[in-house]
């Protein structure tokens, strides 16, 4: 029997804003789809683009990088670098045939639990509509 397609999302969340935001969604019991697997990092600036590419190579359907809003970085400047790195990587992935929609960078503050759940929900929806990734059959 065919099992329905469930997209897999890897989320890299900075522990000061976005990871706290995700926790906030929990404490407020704001439900969102169970498709995201969260990896905690000190700062979104820690996320080497290699991780993102690796996720896709492994077979992730979507990758999310979330950090403090620019200007609020706990480490003062981290997310400014995040912004540059991924503004560059995103079109590049698209060029390689990995749709822009599959890679998201979002700014989620510690108080934005609702926003976090909205991000995950809309991201999951988008990926569902995109359907599974085609690519090398054997990875």
């Amino acid at each position, binding site marked *: 029997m065919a099992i329905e397609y469930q997209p897999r999302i890897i989320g890299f969340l900075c522990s000061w804003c976005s990871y706290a935001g995700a926790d906030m969604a929990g404490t407020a019991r704001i439900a969102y789809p169970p498709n995201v697997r969260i990896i905690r990092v000190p700062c979104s600036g820690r996320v080497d*683009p*290699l991780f993102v*590419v*690796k996720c896709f*190579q*492994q077979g992730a359907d979507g990758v999310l990088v979330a950090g403090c809003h*620019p*200007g609020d970085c706990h480490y003062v*400047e981290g997310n*400014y*670098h995040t*912004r*540059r*790195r*991924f*503004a*560059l*990587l*995103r*079109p*590049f992935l*698209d*060029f*390689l*045939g*990995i*749709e822009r929609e599959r890679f*998201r*960078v*979002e700014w989620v503050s510690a108080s934005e639990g609702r926003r976090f759940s909205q991000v995950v929900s809309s991201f999951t929806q988008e990926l569902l509509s995109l359907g599974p990734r*085609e*690519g*090398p059959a*054997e*990875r």
Partner: protein
Amino acid sequence: MEAIERIRDKARELLESQAVECVIGYERATDNVGARPLFAYEPGEVARFIFDQTCHHNLTRYLRDKKDRTVAVVAKPCDSRAINMLINEKQLERERVFIIGVVCPGMVEVGWSRPSQELQPLCRYCRQHTPVVYDFLAGEPPAEEPEPSPPYPDVAEMEGKSVAERRAFWSQHFERCIRCYACRQACPGCYCTECFVDRLDPLWVGIRIAPGENEMWNTIRAYHLAGRCIDCGACQQVCPVNIPLMLLNRKLGKEVEELFDFQAGLDAETPPPLVTFKKEEKLEADL
């Protein structure tokens, strides 16, 4: 006087005065068609130097190996940008290298028996025919540099395709990659003591020659040159299975130019886009 004569005279002068230990240039390869690098240590050797449209190699690749000694190098415009890039990345001291700049007519494909008349694709889009930095210039610089519009026709064409088409295109190319890493060896920017692809822990790229792993390698190779690639095409030139590597590099080059108004190696001072930032810059649109 012919450009090549001026190169030879300068090379001789530099070696005789012992201003440099060695002059890196081109000589005719044994197939009598192509060119190959020549490391001249003796004034007597300079007669072997040539310069024509077959001299596509980027000789700055060798400069890091000799970073502690003073050498002279024959540099085409793109090569000269590599020198700036290396200085910026503190891999080279300006005063240790004497740059014999050559005005570049563009390189041709070198066939088996004779060089083709065709300019290499990359050279058709070239925007620098005069080196951006040199100590001595051979050849007459053109009145003005051409401005191909769009500056990245090859990239633009690819962008025109559908995601699925691009996916298919790259998959079939990456499947053919034999992971010989010749591209890496030829690139002046690839100088890590241990390349990420060779590391076992963390194992970024699996050892298997499998499409997925190949894709990882080719993607990151290009990404690591983002804002650094100086458009010389050496990687593509040496690829035994003809993967259009420069298309990847140039896509990133295009993005860097559009987002950050930066081209690698035009000078040695401007910090490359990925080591700096502007608080006020608006990039969210691209995220």
